[in-house]
């Protein structure tokens, strides 16, 4: 059957199970949009292409399915760039489809021509420039396969307008043939046995649980390993949810703003079992003094990550789920009570400094607000965040029992991720309780998507932790630049009026006693809600490992009397 290139694109997207796409039309992708009307797909019209990218990314992270975002050529495509880089850094499977000028115009600086494959080369897992309709089916099939397999990542397809219009015979490719693409499977038996032996011999082991556990759906195998061999689990920011927060073996988050006892456990360990994490500088601190007594096992799907930052003793290449389930057949039961007692002592010391146990002093602290949101949502919400202090507090004070419930930009640290990614999450399951924990700075970067949320009637709760500052930068200025607040005070708009202009019910909260009432209001409001929490302006996130410092040399919150009142 003869179809236009645009129709072939949609035929292929339907076969990939695509139900929702996020984007904006323009000159160079109009044939794609026109053909879309014939297919059962829901299109979400965003207000800025960055929003489309984060939505598709949020959709992908929450569901494990491939997200799809679309843009026209030139400025439409370049507006995607931040979102593509964000997806790349966090290995999120998103297919980006951009329109391009006619093939015969390429290279001639035609109207809205931009070298999109050139620009996105280093921030995609792979990309394609399609100049003929005949290529589309094969390319789309490959793009989805590449995006979701191996170490997932964004793939961009730039389709020339003539290729969208041309008609050609539609033949769906039976299989993907990529001679240079071989995602690994499991590690050799001898290595698995060696790993089991190292685990058996260790007295102070720690599992480092990364995003890979969620991506390859290997968290249950990891939990089994932890329980069977009695190994405490430290999580990266993106690994949060891989171990239930209430599990006694859970050490919470590691790294720059990790729990002090968690970082101390890592520094004193004699074995680190790193699972789907990449020893990012935000989790290791000074590499020279990182976990100096520990042997290191690194299970990784991407060979270029092994020995990149930390030289390890035993790399195991492969898909985490396959490697872990194979490894489990060699791992014996053991106990490490002494080690866990030691960690327990550190934990008690950490608790004594924890702001969560502070008595009500009339001030509104972000940590307390987030804990109240946790209570009000019975710990069952899915959170997305911006980037900054509020993001770290969300990671620290909203304990998750399940994976795929904490959606945040880790590797790229992209402010503005919160609102659009929440809409993407909502589309994976409209009954989900979706909350955005945002900063006043981050929120303003993509607040235009409020109208997208309203247009879609999405039930999303937005809680702005409004400290009237670019808080995280302010904190660095306080600690490392003698409190010289260069360009960090934010004179935000009236967020209540902004919400109301969109028809979104909103409340402002300035005192602790108003928090629960506002959360009840949010719960009872059927559609989107915005809450503007005027929190303490100059609070700092603790503990903090200054960039490049030793992981055990944390700036700690000054201890304070604990009361029960």
């Amino acid at each position: 059957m003869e179809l236009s290139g645009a129709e072939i694109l949609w035929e292929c997207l339907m076969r990939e199970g695509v139900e929702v796409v996020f984007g904006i039309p323009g000159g160079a992708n109009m044939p794609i949009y026109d053909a879309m009307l014939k297919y059962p797909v829901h299109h979400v019209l965003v207000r800025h292409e960055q929003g489309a990218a984060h939505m598709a990314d949020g959709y992908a992270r929450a569901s494990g399915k491939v997200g799809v975002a679309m843009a026209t050529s030139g400025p439409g495509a370049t507006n995607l760039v931040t979102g593509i880089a964000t997806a790349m850094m966090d290995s999120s499977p998103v297919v980006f489809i951009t329109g391009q000028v006619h093939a015969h115009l390429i290279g001639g600086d035609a109207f809205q021509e931009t070298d999109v494959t050139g620009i996105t080369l280093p921030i995609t897992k792979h990309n394609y420039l399609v100049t003929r309709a005949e290529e589309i089916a094969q390319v789309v099939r490959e793009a989805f396969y590449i995006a979701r397999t191996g170490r997932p990542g964004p793939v961009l397809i730039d389709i020339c307008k003539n290729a969208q219009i041309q008609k050609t015979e539609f033949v769906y490719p039976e299989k993907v043939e990529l001679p240079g693409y071989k995602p690994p499977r499991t590690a050799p038996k001898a290595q698995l046995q060696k790993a089991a032996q190292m685990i058996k011999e260790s007295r102070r082991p720690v599992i480092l649980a990364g995003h890979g556990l969620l991506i390859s759906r290997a968290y249950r195998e990891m939990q089994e390993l932890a329980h069977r061999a009695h190994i405490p689990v430290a999580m990266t920011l993106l690994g949060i949810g891989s171990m239930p927060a209430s599990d006694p073996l859970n050490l919470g988050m590691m790294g720059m703003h990790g729990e002090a006892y968690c970082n101390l456990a890592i520094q004193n360990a004699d074995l680190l079992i790193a699972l789907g994490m990449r020893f990012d500088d935000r989790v290791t601190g000074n590499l020279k003094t990182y976990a100096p007594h520990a042997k290191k096992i690194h299970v990784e799907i991407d060979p270029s990550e092994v020995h990149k930052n930390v030289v390890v003793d035993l790399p195991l290449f492969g898909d985490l789920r396959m490697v872990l389930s194979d490894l489990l057949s060699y791992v014996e039961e053991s106990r490490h009570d002494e080690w866990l007692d030691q960690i327990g002592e550190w934990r008690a010391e950490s608790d004594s400094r924890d702001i969560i146990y502070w008595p009500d002093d009339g001030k509104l602290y972000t940590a307390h607000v987030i804990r109240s949101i946790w209570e009000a949502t019975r710990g069952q919400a899915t959170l997305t965040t911006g980037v900054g202090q509020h993001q770290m507090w969300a990671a620290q004070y909203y304990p998750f029992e399940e994976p795929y419930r904490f959606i945040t930009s880790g590797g790229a640290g992209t402010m503005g991720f919160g609102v659009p990614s929440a809409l993407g999450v909502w589309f994976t399951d409209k009954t989900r309780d979706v909350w955005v924990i945002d900063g006043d700075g981050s929120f303003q970067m993509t607040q235009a998507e409020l109208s997208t949320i309203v247009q879609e009637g999405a039930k999303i709760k937005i809680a702005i932790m409004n400290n009237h500052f670019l808080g995280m930068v302010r904190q660095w200025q306080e600690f490392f630049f003698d409190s010289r607040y260069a360009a960090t005070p934010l004179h935000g708009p009236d967020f209540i009026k902004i919400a109301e202009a969109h028809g979104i019910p909103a409340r402002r909260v300035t005192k602790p006693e108003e928090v629960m009432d506002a959360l009840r209001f949010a719960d009872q409001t059927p559609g989107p809600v915005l809450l503007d929490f005027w929190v303490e302006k100059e609070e700092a996130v603790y503990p903090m490992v200054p960039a490049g410092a030793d992981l055990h040399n944390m700036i700690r919150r000054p201890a304070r009397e604990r009361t029960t009142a």
Partner: protein
Amino acid sequence: MQHTLIALVENKPGVLNRVASLFRRRNFNIESLNVGHTDRKDISRMTIVINSDEVDARKVEANLYKLVNVIDVHDVSTQPAVIRDLALIKVKAALDQRAEIANLASIFRGRIVDVAAESVIVEITGTEDKIESLVELLRPFGILEMVRTGQVAMLRGGYEPVRHTPGAGSNGHHPEEALEMD
């Protein structure tokens, strides 16, 4: 130390750019990079020479594999290999100097491939050292222009290529199998 890597890549537009971009992005320094055809139309062959320690060489290999269009990478640095570079050297040559230049070239099994009133072009094939020696000997005459292809390399018969990246080469499974993964 010098590492010589052979990469087989799909012969598609943009692949050279992907490889070059990778080196820039990861901050690897290329000594030389040569691309040419193989006996198969759909596969090109790159010879990449880098000056780096062992750890970085492994990183280059692993990163090359991340490119979807890279089919195979092996390292010939530690094995017996035929390594060749070709140079064309245009040397200032008055009439009475031609014979001397031709002599020098022939010692290195080079030859004169072009003669003009005031210059000659010497062609030489060989290892880097050999070419450099000849260049030094020709320098006093005055080198007007020079071009080198960069090294190309091939393992000697009877040796198995060394692949360091796990899952590379024959250990990797086939794409059709991978499809069953999800």
